């Protein structure tokens, strides 16, 4: 066993906050990363992952503690480390007005890579990243997935002795994620480069050789993912819903149970993590099937245990997000209708004759890789874009043409945080309440209500821009629900949110749908498709498949894979369609 590449002892870092006060980004972190394989830092937003990675890269100095990277003391000679490692920051660090080739050349020059080495390295990088056809394109014009691969290629122009990747897969679709992991695997296999990656995807962490679980600047556990998974041993089960109950309803019911740590829909059933080994009585009527513990289960247990103060998900049987139940009887009523919808931007066809219907109280998911046309469709539904042609009907009105009043019925949560960063939580809510015509006592009541529901009271005076990611998302939801909309549009609402926050988010969406609110979501997280009643998979502006999650999953059903995940299904559907398109072109 060779010496570890990273050794940290009792690292501390405290930041001054603009609003006053301090934040302990790292509170006594000790860790050891071995010389081989892939290691992951996992944890919710604000757990200190980025701070730690930047510290290892020599970009931040620790207030206290010792940190040695590649045998060099970071505090003494950060440059010596920076000469030898590769690093990709969260936002990829690309020059958007330089082309792919120019970005690569720049980093090759900076790393002093000789012409001979380049001649051998470039073709390999191009092959790995599939960027070959795009070398002349400006980096700013690349899709998210391609940017991320270019960022990685730039970090790899000279074989580094250690590769640091800060949240490289945030906001990237499953296809691109899979490709990235293939590159990383090849790198470890062929060149033996140690890799440290931070991520909020637990399935990614699970396939690493070593995992460091972080929480509010502290390390909760570190070791092999399998070993950490043992925390959940004997507490994980699977149960099928009975009768009419849908998996997501069952999940909601289970989460309300104090003896359940976590429950998530999975392949038509619900995966359950119990707080303790369950007594039979607690789950009367359910056939519990024990399943092997996964890293994700352990992660949830660790996080919840560490954060006793974190509000338990407010997904009880009747969370009062709406004052009144929408008439539940008319569930069959079509609320959103889209037929032959086309959107062209000049020559480029962003949305190509898509069609779907959404019924009242349904959760409908639009899934697809980056650039598939999800957001464009969404913006047309909300009246933010005009359709080139086709029919678009939202609750009996075309929003593009309808008067302002018609927009009262819908709530919209945009892809990135889009409330006022300069205003406090309370001021943001106040503004949106007034914008929707709420006044006086009614306004106060509604604001109180959503602040209760989303546990925002302690944060009322904090500026929107200073909130941590998860809270920003809560505030955006709260603002969108103030006026009790009938239809809720959620565009990539969970992108970049940590696993715990995502669970909370879906709990709320579930509860809303139960009360008759129609919810349309787009998401990158395929596992989240399990929460939807129906989904549509989009690629290159077309609907490739549409139906209930179980139907979609069946697309990937093979002998070798009798229980395909949503990820598998998604990749199968997209790859089949792309292959067909290629064949069509060849013919």
């Amino acid at each position, binding site marked *: 066993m060779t010496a570890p590449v990273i050794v940290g002892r009792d690292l501390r870092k405290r930041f001054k906050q603009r609003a006053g006060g301090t934040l302990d980004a790292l509170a006594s972190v000790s860790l050891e990363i071995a010389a081989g394989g892939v290691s992951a830092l996992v944890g919710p937003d604000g757990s200190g992952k980025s701070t730690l990675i930047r510290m290892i890269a*020599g970009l931040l100095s620790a207030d206290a503690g010792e940190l040695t990277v590649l045998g060099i003391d970071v505090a003494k000679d950060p440059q010596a480390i920076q*000469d030898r490692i590769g*690093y990709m920051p969260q936002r990829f*660090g690309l020059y*958007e007005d330089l082309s792919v080739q120019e970005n690569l050349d720049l980093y090759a020059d900076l790393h002093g890579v000789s012409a001979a080495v380049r001649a051998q390295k470039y073709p390999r990088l191009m092959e790995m990243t599939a960027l070959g056809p795009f070398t002349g394109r400006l980096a700013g014009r690349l899709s998210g997935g391609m940017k991320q691969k270019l960022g990685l290629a730039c970090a790899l122009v000279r074989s580094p002795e250690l590769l640091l990747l800060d949240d490289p897969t945030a906001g990237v679709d499953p296809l691109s994620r899979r490709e990235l992991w293939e590159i990383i695997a090849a790198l470890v296999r062929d060149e033996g480069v140690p890799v440290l990656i931070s991520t909020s995807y637990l399935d990614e962490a699970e396939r690493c050789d070593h995992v460091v679980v972080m929480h509010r600047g502290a390390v909760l556990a570190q070791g092999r993912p399998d070993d950490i998974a043992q925390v959940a041993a004997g507490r994980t089960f699977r149960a099928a819903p009975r009768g009419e109950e849908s998996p997501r309803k069952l999940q909601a019911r289970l989460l309300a149970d104090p003896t359940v740590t976590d429950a998530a829909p999975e392949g038509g059933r619900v995966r359950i993590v119990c707080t303790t080994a369950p007594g039979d009585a607690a789950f009367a009527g359910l056939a519990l099937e024990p399943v092997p513990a996964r890293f994700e289960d352990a992660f949830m247990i660790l996080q919840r245990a560490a954060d006793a103060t974190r509000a338990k998900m407010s997904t009880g049987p009747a969370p009062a997000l709406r004052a009144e139940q929408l008439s539940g009887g008319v569930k069959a009523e079509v609320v959103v209708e889209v037929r032959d919808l086309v959107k062209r931007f000049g020559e480029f066809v962003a949305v190509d004759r898509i069609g779907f219907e959404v019924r009242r109280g349904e959760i409908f998911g639009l899934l697809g890789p980056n650039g598939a046309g999800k957001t464009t469709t969404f913006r047309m539904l909300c009246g933010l874009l005009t359709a080139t042609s086709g029919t678009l009907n939202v609750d009996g009105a075309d929003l593009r043409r309808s008067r302002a009043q018609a927009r009262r019925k819908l709530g919209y949560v945009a892809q990135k945080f889009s409330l006022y960063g300069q205003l406090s939580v309370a001021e943001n809510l106040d503004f949106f309440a007034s914008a929707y015509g709420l006044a006086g006592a009614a306004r106060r009541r509604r604001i109180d209500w959503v602040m209760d529901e989303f546990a925002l009271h302690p944060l009322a005076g904090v500026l929107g821009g200073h909130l941590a990611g998860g809270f920003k998302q809560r505030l955006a939801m709260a603002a969108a629900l103030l006026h009790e909309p009938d239809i809720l549009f959620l565009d990539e609402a969970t992108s970049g949110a940590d696993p715990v926050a995502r669970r909370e988010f879906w709990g709320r969406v579930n509860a809303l749908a139960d009360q008759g609110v129609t919810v349309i979501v787009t998401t990158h997280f395929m596992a989240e498709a399990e929460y939807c009643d129906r989904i549509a998979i989009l690629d290159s502006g077309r609907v490739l498949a549409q139906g209930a999650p179980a139907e979609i999953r069946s697309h990937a059903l093979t002998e070798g894979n009798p229980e395909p995940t949503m990820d598998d299904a998604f990749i199968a559907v997209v790859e089949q369609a792309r292959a067909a398109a290629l064949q069509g072109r060849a013919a």
Partner: protein
Amino acid sequence: MAATSPGPRLAAKTSRIVALIRKEGRQVLRDPSSFAIGVVLPLMLILLFGYAMSLDVKHVPVAVVLEQPSSEASEVAAGFQLSPYFETRLTRSMAEAEELMLAQKVDGIVHLPADFARRAAQGDANIEVVVYGVDANRGRFIQAYAQAAIAQAGVRRAAEGRSDPTAGGQAVVESQLWFNAANDSRYFLVPGLVVLIMTLIGAFMTSMVVAREWERGTFEALFVTPVRTDEILIAKIVPYFLLGLGGLLLCLGSARLLFDVPIRGSILLLVAVSMLYLLVSVSMGLLISASLKGQFLSSQVALVVTFMPALMLSGFIYDLRGVPLAVRLISYLVPARYYVSLLQSLFLAGDVWSVIIPNAAVLAVFAAVLLALTRLTTRKSLG
């Protein structure tokens, strides 16, 4: 480590700097905002200052009130009518002239009363000159000119022997305007223009491009490479320095060819002091952006701290000799002030060493101090 000789190390350093400069150059050409500040604005300023703006007083509209024509009164009126400085409108009554002035049709009134000829003969004539005082500068000019015109009329009369010989002589001012005999305001607007453009490219533009790297997170990736801080700084200074020199050549060319402003000093010296000022200005831009790290705030601060003082507190338009002590003390902190002094001399007077040496020395000190501060403020660290 010890095995590496300085040769390859230097070569590696140079190739890193060259790579960064090449990158910066490409960005300037591709980013529309860089193009706007580096190329469009300087051209616009050259045209505005060269063609549009003028402090020359020519064709000032005045009303001459000739209440009763007489040879004496007509002589005075003719003095105004023939002058290239005025455009004269003759009126019969003061009321008419006042109405013209209220309507901003004329900027001044020369009132020759009905009894002008009679009283002039008695040696007791009075000419009333009323100016529109809102434009104080112009008002003063009209008064001064009227004074001179009447004095001249007196001189002429004396020469013609028409007046009483006992009237005696008087002191008469004969003035010469050195360096700008034609009294063309372009002569001092154009050197000032050079200062503005050097400041704009040097400080304003640099402050934006460096802050942009902080804001877009590109520095973060750049820092974790073998690149050293001084290399990053050199690579930021060189392109904007060169762009500034390009702007300088543009200004010098248009000064000579379009605006006929002479360059009496040596061009070499002019370029040399401009390089010194560019260094000062670029390091101010770097310093501002390194301490603020946001594009918007940096550019605003750069505007208030560098551009506005270069316009108002450099002695370019408003002479600093007339300002109160406190403001004058502030102006000593404005590098543009020394550069304006250098440029006005090098353009119009020649190589006046008694101006060049002290002013260039102050600029050199500014450059050294600001560069040192920039070096200390810029760190390869995000903390």
